[in-house]
């Protein structure tokens, strides 16, 4: 598992990367009431805003962690966005393929992320 400074987690399984937000991020956001997911098949570039999250407090964005293409989204979140607050590690947002897999090597591992949020 890898982590970004945007508080996303990335799980690479045979070239398909599953992306969600960390428990730390979910706690900071508070009760999540709305999630807008990208279209499957969308070509995305690193840093592009592709997910909108609305909590009881405010709206925020999730950016694409890598260049690539969205291959699947977690439709369950659209109907029940509170799943992210219940278990952020299980409630993935989208899956993607990437043209720049080597960039994951430079991302934080779990220990580095823990240090980052302290």
């Amino acid at each position: 598992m890898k982590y970004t400074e945007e508080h996303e987690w990335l799980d690479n399984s045979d070239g398909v990367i599953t992306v969600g937000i960390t428990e730390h991020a979910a706690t900071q956001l508070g009760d999540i009431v709305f999630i807008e997911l990208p279209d499957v098949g969308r070509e995305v570039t690193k840093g592009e805003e592709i997910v909108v999250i609305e909590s009881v407090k405010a709206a925020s964005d999730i950016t694409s962690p890598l260049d690539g293409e969205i291959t699947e989204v977690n439709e369950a979140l659209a109907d029940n966005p509170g799943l992210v607050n219940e278990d952020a590690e299980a409630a993935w947002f989208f899956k993607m393929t990437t043209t720049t897999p080597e960039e994951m090597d430079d991302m934080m591992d779990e220990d580095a992320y823990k240090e980052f949020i302290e």
Partner: protein
Amino acid sequence: MTTEPTDPIKLPLDALHAELGGKMVPFAGHSMPVQYAMGVMGEHLHTREKAGLFDVSHMGQMVIRGEGRAEALERLLPIDVVGLKEGRQRYGLLMLPDGGVADDLMVANRGDHLLMVVNGAMKCLDLEIVQAGMPDHDVTLLEDRALLALQGPSAEAVLAGLVPEAAEMRFMDVRTLDWDGTELWVSRSGYTGEDGYEISVPVARAEAFARALLAHEDAAPIGLGARDSLRLEAGMPLYGQDLTAETTPVEAGLGWAIQKVRRTGGAREGGFPGADRVLAELAEGATRKRVGLRPQGRAPMRTGVALYADETGGDPVGEVTSGGFGPSVGAPVAMGYVPADCAVGTVLYGDVRGKRLPVTVADLPFHTPRYKR
């Protein structure tokens, strides 16, 4: 004249908020708890189901003394103050000369004085307006009393456990009650759409009193976040957003607050700032009005979202002034201003991040109040 930036003022219960895990934010010049460990959603639902305790000590408690105070106050407010009986409270509006609203407030007749509870962010300006408008009266903002709100279906049981007479009060009654040698100024009112009380307590005894209330198993501390979603569902305007110097009482849907005696043909007709415009709008209607708004999707429409008549093109016809997720409604809710001819059921389109999403004009409130009348 310039003013130095100052740190937010700490409330009398600051240490208790910290102990209870309150997340403090600056609000209306004060350091206020936005939420506790339960979170905004949980705190909102707890208040609707049991009882929530809110620290609203940032609000201004303005005491007005002197002969003829009710008549004099009617020169500033468009409401019936003279007819307000001792031991009763009513909603009022501090008016500006052009018919805009300087603040909304509660005024209580407490026998030998009137007590006005005004918004925290406006209290200093309000004091200037009232003192200027009532130069022959003694008008002061109390510094030595905290203000707590206890709201929800268990509020009566919680407060009556400490002060049994509280159970005898009905909606908008005000009384002075004794708790353990401490003088409480209690009103049966609130800002959540639930039964409950607002209680003024001397600063020196505020923490002990709050702890005594929280000792009841049904009572929990509630932050500003849930206070906002509760009042939004209850259809109550927030001064500074839904009600401003640029909105008139009639536009804001608050014509009900202006009693017959102050209207055209009444015994004490007009005589308040902006009366010409307000009385004309009461008779003929305003061009825009504050309404409820129900976004059709799940995306909340927040303050500032522009409203359009059509899915594409055209200029905005209105604006969202408050909006978010309504935990008791289970869906996004909002309020805002639309043209006066927009009937309930009209579909408009709110611009959310560049997309026009459908939103239906709805009746207020979204949550039916449960007052003990």
